[in-house]
């Protein structure tokens, strides 16, 4: 969320029977500064409300972080361009190093000699091999367009990375208390 006052309604859903629900939701629980995070535990909220008849459901703690200011478009473009170039060159490096390591040219000539009788396989076989690589990356990375909305292998990795970061931040905040 943006920097400023954090209300109870911002960090949890509230359902009240004997209390005014709207008043509870608007109750301030902290002040969020720019580029900072706030850590809330269920027990902090109970202490703030001074009530012992509260039932907590869900996660026992949460972190509220300040929304990052949107980057300037030129800077974002430069960063994205760098990332694209890096991954393109990185992909090339990875596969070329592998081919050098296993002497792929020799292997291709040998396979061609066995199957066709000529060691000179021409470029067509290399193109078919490269097409196989493209198909494999798209298939195993779940990058092929399909009607089913399933995440790609990189999206699940991104989710895991974010979950781990959140867990670490919670752990760090709990350690400070």
């Amino acid at each position: 969320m943006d920097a400023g006052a954090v209300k109870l309604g911002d960090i949890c859903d509230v359902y009240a029977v004997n209390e005014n629900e709207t008043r509870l939701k608007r109750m301030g629980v902290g002040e969020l500064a720019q580029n900072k995070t706030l850590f809330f535990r269920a027990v902090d909220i109970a202490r703030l409300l001074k009530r012992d008849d509260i039932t907590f459901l869900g996660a026992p703690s949460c972190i509220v972080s300040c929304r990052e200011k949107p980057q300037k478009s030129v800077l974002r473009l430069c960063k994205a361009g760098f990332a694209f170039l890096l991954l393109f060159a990185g992909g090339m490096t990875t596969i070329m190093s592998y081919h050098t390591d296993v002497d792929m040219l020799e292997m291709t000539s040998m396979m061609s000699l066995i199957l066709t009788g000529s060691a000179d396989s021409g470029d067509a076989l290399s193109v078919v091999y490269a097409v196989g690589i493209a198909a494999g990356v798209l298939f195993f990375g779940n990058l092929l367009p399909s009607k089913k909305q399933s995440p790609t292998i990189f999206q699940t990795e991104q989710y895991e990375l974010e979950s781990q970061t959140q867990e670490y931040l919670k752990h760090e905040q709990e350690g400070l208390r």
Partner: protein
Amino acid sequence: MTAGAAAAFFIAFAAGMAVSAATVVIISVLGIVPHLATITGTKRLLNGYAYTLCAGVVFGALLSLIQPKLSIAWLGNALFFVFQALSGVFTGFFLSALAEVLDIFPAIYGALRLKRVGALLIIALAAGKCVGTLIFQLTPYFQ
């Protein structure tokens, strides 16, 4: 097309699929793409990065097998310079991610009780890799 040629094409295609499966798994397990998207603050472009990586792998495979002789003078030199620089960054990224996945840093911190100077250790490691690469590339001992 003879049966042998057809079989060669089929095997080449299957080999490509198998190699790319391993490539995708390694790069995915190391979390290179999500880390890069997080560092640059461009998480929305995650799928674009994945396609770019795929294009890079295919292009690299074609170049290393066909090995075309592109005599494009100064432009070739410039491209080679940029490619080498980017390859270096990617290799550093790759090795750091590998060290992280293998839990090398926590093992060092635990063994030496040096958690507070963790950042310095990583800088020392990066400097060591840099010096090692220069010795490997510039001295005659490894030629």
